[in-house]
């Protein structure tokens, strides 16, 4: 869907390139997370995709077309790409409704179509249109502003979204909730998303694919599991941090480690020692610790399909560690 080919960006007056011959692709319907320390070029790459910056060298393709050739001017290209930034950048002199309607108005949609689309979007991001439509941005909390920012980016239903630390400016509890809601939304919308963050945990949680950058160079890219189980070098290992096993368990679904079991100890099924098969294994581990139990039941909906044991988790982690 999006292909970068040997893209280089040297800012005027800078000695080192901000982005140095970076190539990778983003698959349609995936969330691709660019992660790295500040100044690694992740934001610059994002901004080159919608031509807020022009590459010094190399090409960027969207659906096989060169971004440079796709439209005569960059403004039209940008109207087809959703854009969310950390500062949100809501227009302070316009109401929430007008803010969300920004791109549809630029595209000259009819007024009643805009109105119904705005209400639909606000509902989609978990806001009450009745209550919030006529408020001004200064009357909103940080989390609400960020939701409005996402709604605005989705307004004209762009196939591609660029998000630059979209949940960076809110407190950790709200951030977690926004992430969860966004992932749920993405399951329905299936947008192709480029997502910038400096937080590896956010990258692992949000990403279908992770691109790790440092000093303008691409260090490693792959699925979160590939990054965790086979870090390319010490830089990636440091970035992942100490608790990669826990992070792995967060990525692994209970369904992967479940062993069918004909019958469970009655205590297990009765007192809530169960997880859903799509839950992360980490959740099973938490229940084990809390309930002081060595096994946890796994359900698929209401049906019990088996159990995860402490031994199975240990075995799984040891097998991965042996491979590294």
């Amino acid at each position: 869907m999006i292909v970068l080919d040997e893209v280089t960006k040297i800012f005027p007056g800078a000695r080192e390139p901000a982005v140095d011959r970076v190539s990778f692709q983003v698959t349609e319907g995936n969330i691709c997370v660019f992660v790295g320390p500040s100044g690694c070029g992740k934001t610059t790459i994002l901004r080159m995709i919608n031509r807020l910056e022009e590459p010094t060298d190399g090409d960027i393709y969207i659906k096989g077309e060169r971004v440079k050739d796709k439209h005569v001017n960059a403004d039209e290209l940008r109207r087809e790409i959703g854009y969310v930034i950390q500062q949100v950048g809501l227009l302070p002199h316009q109401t929430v409704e007008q803010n969300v309607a920004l791109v549809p108005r630029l595209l000259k949609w009819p007024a009643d179509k805009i109105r119904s689309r705005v209400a639909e979007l606000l509902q989609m991001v978990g806001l009450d249109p009745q209550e919030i439509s006529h408020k001004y941005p200064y009357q909103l909390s940080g989390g609400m502003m960020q939701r409005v920012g996402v709604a605005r980016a989705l307004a004209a239903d762009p196939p591609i979204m660029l998000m630059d630390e979209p949940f960076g400016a809110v407190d950790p509890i709200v951030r977690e909730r926004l992430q969860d809601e966004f992932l749920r939304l993405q399951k329905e919308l299936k947008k192709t998303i480029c997502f910038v963050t400096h937080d590896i945990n956010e990258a692992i949680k949000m990403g279908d694919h992770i691109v790790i950058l440092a000093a303008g160079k691409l260090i490693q890219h792959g699925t979160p599991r590939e990054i965790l189980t086979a870090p390319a070098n010490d830089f990636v290992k440091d970035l992942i941090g100490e608790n990669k096993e826990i992070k792995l368990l967060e990525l692994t679904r209970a369904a992967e480690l479940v062993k069918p079991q004909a019958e469970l100890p009655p205590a297990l099924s009765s007192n809530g020692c169960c997880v859903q098969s799509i839950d992360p294994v980490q959740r099973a581990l938490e229940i084990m610790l809390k309930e002081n139990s060595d096994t946890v039941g796994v359900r698929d909906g209401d049906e019990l399909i088996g159990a995860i044991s402490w031994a199975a988790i240990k075995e799984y982690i040891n097998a991965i560690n042996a491979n590294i």
Partner: protein
Amino acid sequence: MELGEGLLRWFVLWFVNFYDEQLGFIDYIIQSWEQIVDYTANHFLLVFIVMFFSLIFWISIGLLISRYDSLATGAFSVGNLLFCIPSISLFGIFITIPMLGLGRTSAALALILYAMMPMVRNVYRGIKSVDWGIIDAARGMGMTARQILFRVQIPIALPVIFAGIRITTVMITGMAAVATFIGERNLGRLIHHGIARESSDMIIAGAILVSFIALLLDYLLGKIERRIASPGLRYDHQDEIT
């Protein structure tokens, strides 16, 4: 008690005396009503002409230098320089220019030049104060440079631009009085003649009427501002509005 009583006595005496002497200007205004109406109309007219052209010129210049930053320092230097010339000598310079001479054209041109500094500076400052994140988001959404200027930057800068317009109007109303020396028949003439004739009634009548016009115009502009500036900005720019 002694002291308090003494103070009170003194105050009452002062009060009676003050009104006896100083309220003479009201009598004066009533006496020369027709002339004062004429002067006031001229005063308003001059301020109106000056503000009309100032808005056109200086807002354009302010927008221009906010786009082309290299011009900004130059424009500010010119504005400051003009602002530093004593008004009476700037009027003097203009009447020596052929074709202009004594009268309204010279007066208006000099005052328009004075208006440059506060107007241009506020327009520039207003446009530049728009948060970078807002502009970036607007660009990222696909707004053109012109749309960003007219739909984002100017509306957001409006309270600051208006502050400049209000300051300038008040300032020009005061300075217009000085134009009496180059032949303007406005409220400055009351002050000028009052000084010449040692008539405090005339001076006070002139001064009070000029201040009243300044306050009135400021109030009206404040009303207009409330009407056209977005309520969403009141929170942001509260300090600049007052």
